[in-house]
């Protein structure tokens, strides 16, 4: 458990997670989601 806690607090884990989110953001933008956001916010 202690090792898992240490790993969750490691720079490698955090950086990996951040890269994953950055990839998700880029993927979303490339897939044209921003247009969907604008249409969605007008429709709401």
């Amino acid at each position, binding site marked *: *458990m*202690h090792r*898992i*806690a*240490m790993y*969750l*607090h*490691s*720079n490698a*884990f*955090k950086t990996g*997670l*951040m890269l*994953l*989110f*950055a*990839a*998700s*953001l*880029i*993927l*979303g*933008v490339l*897939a044209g*989601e*921003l*247009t*969907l*956001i*604008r249409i*969605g*916010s*007008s*429709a*709401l």
Partner: protein
Amino acid sequence: MNRKQLYKARALLRNIRSPFVAIFGLILPNSYFSVISTKEIYSGPLKQVCVPGLNCHACPTAMMACPMGMIQQFAAVHKFPFAVAGFLGIIGIVFGRSVCGWLCPFGWVQDQIYRIKSKKFKIPTYLKYGKYFSLVILALILPYFTEANWFSRICPWGTLIAGVPWVIWNPVNPMNALPVIEPGSVGWLYVMKVSILVIFLALFVFTRRPFCRTLCPLGAIYSQFNKISFMRLEVTGKCVGCDMCVDLCPVEISVADDPNSPDCIRCLNCTLCNNVHVRWGPTLESGSKQIVAASSKG
């Protein structure tokens, strides 16, 4: 530092935070003042960008989109919101739940109303699970199956900055010469929204940040990052357990026991105590409360 000095320092921190929230959380995302002449909400390119905190995109002056509105919208059309998830994830992994403490205007409103002198009550701790219910049921499952944005329908912040202003103002649309809110269109849903808003406004007087702690789905998302974010709090080994941090905390967390609790909104009030520090990166001092709390719960 004695209690009186600490309360003075907290007031100073609040005075730093207030203009920050007002400018970046409220004014910048809501600066479409041309609505006075157009009588229509903005739908230009900036509406493609989400703000990090709650911000109703139906507000007359809204320039940007609300992340919770978008998550519901994507659930309703059965798509995964990659861009919004990535955006919120990056903010969460770097700052944890700081958006709740430093950017969200609704949190700021709650803090200000709580300053009204009255008898104060503590919220039962089991109610904190309400925000996860709100996220999973109201913002994901119900929109997915019913194609309606259920959280937005009851969101008290949306009612306060969008629903109520539109109904009170109700301008005549220059395009068709009809009122924007058609006669008879204000029904039971609007009454329910306003009732929820009134209940919460009353609760704000008696309890600290009840909406953030019990209902906010965005807070539920950000709270998952507190334990693993680059920004974190650490309590030094010199802590004597005086519980001053609990007094200073707007969400009544025992910082000494769990400085990176999911409920912490990172307002940094507790850092006024010399034994609580903000730290960045992975460094864990042996014997610090953070590592003790993390390993005992892990």
